[in-house]
């Protein structure tokens, strides 16, 4: 029973991490209609920026996380404004440029930091114990930071004018534009918000999991799983789905072993895509 609860806690912790990744991914799809193949790249690069600031420059870890978020948000802004914006009307072209940008990012990381996985330990060690339940402090801190970020995103999206503008554009872009929403400003902002979240998640999570140039591939795959399960473009759906994915992954890893958990998830998502493409909480199929 204690093992079951401890696994559940790990699952919830994973769920919060996937939520942050999926929120960025789903915001970009919902508002811009773009499937961002570079999302995993922003995650990895955020991890490396934090590693550089914290380990190489010796800056405090919270500052390193902040730097990772800001630098990835800036990079995302520039990418959207100067590259993605020019092909935004063509869904295949947006896929291609985000895919190309991911390859450029992964290669840049490889050239700068090398193929070896660097030592990037989480600054806090130790384990919280309650009876037979163990939960590392690092996971607790990441859980708290991720929950705070999720609350911030929800506040931004549902309680501010910028958020209302973004939601209006995701509902009906032509009407929102006609009513004065400035797509030229809001599109890069939404993209920067999403990539900033990805960078921040990378900075928080890679010290616990792994930091290597190509971990973005699996991050991309799990982001896909989460947003498809929740419904592309649905913020609440992505949040619910992230916790489902996190819990299934944690329990499958403990009770099934190997890659059966991932296989189960992928098969589940394939079925959902086929029978209900709009996902669990998506309202309609958007043809981007």
């Amino acid at each position, binding site marked *: 029973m204690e093992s079951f609860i401890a696994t559940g806690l790990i699952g919830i912790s994973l769920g919060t991490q996937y939520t942050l990744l999926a929120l960025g991914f789903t915001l970009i*799809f919902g508002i811009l209609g773009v*499937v961002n193949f570079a999302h995993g790249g922003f995650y990895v690069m955020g991890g490396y920026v934090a590693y550089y600031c914290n380990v190489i420059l010796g800056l405090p870890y919270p500052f390193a996380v902040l730097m990772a978020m800001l630098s990835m948000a800036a990079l995302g802004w520039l990418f959207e404004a100067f*590259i993605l914006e*020019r*092909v935004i009307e063509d*869904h*295949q*072209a947006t*896929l*291609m*440029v985000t*895919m*190309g*940008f*991911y*390859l*450029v*990012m*992964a*290669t*840049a990381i*490889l*050239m700068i930091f090398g*193929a070896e996985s660097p030592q990037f330990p989480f600054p806090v060690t130790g384990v919280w114990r309650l009876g037979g339940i163990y939960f590392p402090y690092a996971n607790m801190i990441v859980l708290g930071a991720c929950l705070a970020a999720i609350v911030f995103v929800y506040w931004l999206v549902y309680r501010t004018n910028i958020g209302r503008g973004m939601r209006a554009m995701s509902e009906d872009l032509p009407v929102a534009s006609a009513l004065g929403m400035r797509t030229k400003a809001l599109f890069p902002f939404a993209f920067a918000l999403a990539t900033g979240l990805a960078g921040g998640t990378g900075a928080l999570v890679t010290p616990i999991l792994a930091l290597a140039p190509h971990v973005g*591939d699996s991050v991309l*795959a799990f982001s*896909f*799983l989460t947003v*498809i399960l929740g419904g*592309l473009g649905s913020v609440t759906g992505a949040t619910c789905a992230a916790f489902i994915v996190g819990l299934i992954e944690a329990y499958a890893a403990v009770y099934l072993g*190997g*890659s*059966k958990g*991932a*296989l189960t998830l*992928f*098969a589940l*998502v*394939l079925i959902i*895509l*086929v029978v209900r*493409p709009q996902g669990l909480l998506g309202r309609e*199929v958007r*043809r*981007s």
Partner: protein
Amino acid sequence: MNNRVPKSVPAEIRASLFSGHDWIALAIVSLTFVIPFTSTNPQVLSQTNLILIAATAALGVYIMQRLDLMSFAVPSFMAIGGYTVALLSMKLQLTDVFVLAAAAFLMPALCAIPLGALILRLKGVYFVLVTFVLTEIVQLLLFEAGPITGGSNGLVGMPAVKIFGMELWDNPHVLLTTCGLAFFSFIITSVFTRWFRSEFAAIETNDVLAESLGLAAWKYKAMAFSVAAGVSGLAGFALVNMLLTAHPSSFAPMSSVNYITYTIVGGKASILGTLIGALLLVSATDYFALSGEMSPGLFGLLIIVVTMVARGGVVGVVSGLLYRLAGQSPSLKNGDHDLGGNGEKGQ
């Protein structure tokens, strides 16, 4: 009910089965048959092998692009074709190249039929996502189904294939096998995409409208998906035959990005584009071999540049220039330049 639309297609256009680009592509692939007989340089043989395998695999992307569908499923079907060949040759001692080629084409093509029935209702990003997920599942299955696929060790020690009882075991003969498979794949793809070009063009332009006008879009989509799977399977055969091993890493999900890149950079509007894309990019990878880790970044840059400034890819740009030099105004949209048999658009 006859759902094809032959009445709208003039007989003379239907008769010109291959376009100019098709003929050029077939001629280039035919010329590669000379290499095994004239060169013993392992570098040349290996490079030609890689280019032909890449071009054959990219045909799977090209076929689905005729329907405005971006497929990431090529490595899945390559794996099915490759593992089928490995299992037949290792477990059943079937080594005849014709039997193996038939199996490598038919097995993925047959698997694609029920899969297609499920996923071809999707389009746009949903189709992209479902094919990506499918490739991930196949990759995981290759690892999990250890008793059949050898798991993470793969299937090692394939016997050499035979043609009329003669073993094709050394490098030139392996290349000869690849040339044959590539030529067969290009012929199939050319005939298939040109024969149904008006139907595919209708579906690519507006599948809902095409369906409302009586075209059974699902039928053409299913056929295209199945043929694309079969051609990918032949590429898988060529790959495992070259490596003499069927291993999951040869069919990694992200390798689909390479095949898409060959198609887009070369020019997605014609079959020649996939060949030119593979030729240029596989050669470029080899050229930059000293700093091999740079090649994905180079691919990425090329993808971005071509997508932004030359949607027609290399072939589209060159065709456009030739039109201008010839003083013609093809008035084609980006990416649709095709010199064609009579200079017509590949429609």
